[in-house]
């Protein structure tokens, strides 16, 4: 009996990384969102209007990106801290934490040989915008310096303008 139980626990431990852990963020953000964006490899490439090669290489390993634009209540009550705690309990490790003084940024990750998962929260006091995201897959970190060098404002479609009159407009001609 004990042997069977140990085997089951061991198997469960092995299987755990195979399941993605986007659910805690979904549970939290679905009722607190203004908008939700769900991006897959094809859509990640699609928003790259100018087909910037560095960007395409950076996102080539990303399987899924979920972005929630949080509502004013979530921004004010800082309830996003709860979801950060949940992911900490799930074994996600801190990469960056910044809080106080208006701006907030949390980035947590869980990397293993199969798939990496990241979750994060960004809140900017000036723009009154708060985003929570979940990312599954591998980010081409090595491409970031090249991307910073080559990136221009109108290279990408601004998703946050979706369903507004600015969507798809050239940012230089706003």
């Amino acid at each position, binding site marked *: 009996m004990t042997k069977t139980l140990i085997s089951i626990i061991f198997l469960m431990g092995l299987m755990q990384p195979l399941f993605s852990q986007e659910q805690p963020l979904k549970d939290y953000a679905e009722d607190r969102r203004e908008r939700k964006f769900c991006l897959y490899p094809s859509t990640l490439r699609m928003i790259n209007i100018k087909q910037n090669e560095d960007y395409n290489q950076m996102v080539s390993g990303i399987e899924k990106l979920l972005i929630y634009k949080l509502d004013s209540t979530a921004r004010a009550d800082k309830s996003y801290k709860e979801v950060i705690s949940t992911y900490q309990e799930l074994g996600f490790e801190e990469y960056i934490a910044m809080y106080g*003084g208006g701006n907030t940024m949390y980035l947590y990750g869980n990397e293993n040989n199969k798939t990496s998962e990241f979750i994060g929260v960004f809140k900017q006091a000036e723009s009154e915008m708060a985003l929570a995201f979940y990312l599954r897959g591998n980010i081409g970190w090595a491409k970031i310096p090249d991307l910073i060098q080559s990136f221009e404002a109108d290279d990408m479609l601004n998703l946050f303008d979706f369903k507004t009159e600015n969507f798809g407009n050239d940012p230089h001609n706003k």
Partner: protein
Amino acid sequence: MKKGLIIIGMLLLSMGVIAQGTVITKYFNLLEENEDYTKVSVSQKMFSMFTELEAGSDAEKEFLEAISKLKGLKVIMADSIGDAEKMYKTAIADVDKAGYEELMSIKDAEENLKFSIIEKDGIIEELIMVAGGNKGFVMLSLYGEIDLSNISKIAQELRVEGLENLGKMRDNHDHDKDTY
């Protein structure tokens, strides 16, 4: 008796581990909910990401090497607080009390700066900087394996507010060399 020695040994070992980052962690906890202060924490996980970057030049290569040896960075900063001078004095007293060794201090009309370190077997394990002006306050702790000759490179490339002060240490160090 043997048990007692083991316990004492373990306590001493754990004290050595706790010593790194104790002061800044204390201030992180103390100012956790205080919105006047921005708190930044960068973990070793984040620094390890830098090792995946491709160095384009020798300077970048040196920077990436220096970064890869770091275990973390914590910064607390405030631009406009009423008790900046008091905070600075209290923080300096806490740093001294915790057994950090003073490396350098700068005092002028606008700002006071003090750099202190924890060194073990010739390796700097933590560098803590406390800065206080009329209204501003910064406490910065860099820990891991720190090479002072690479400090200004790290300060330049990371572009974290408050970190530019680390460059002053290198400048001052060079100036001292010129003087003697």
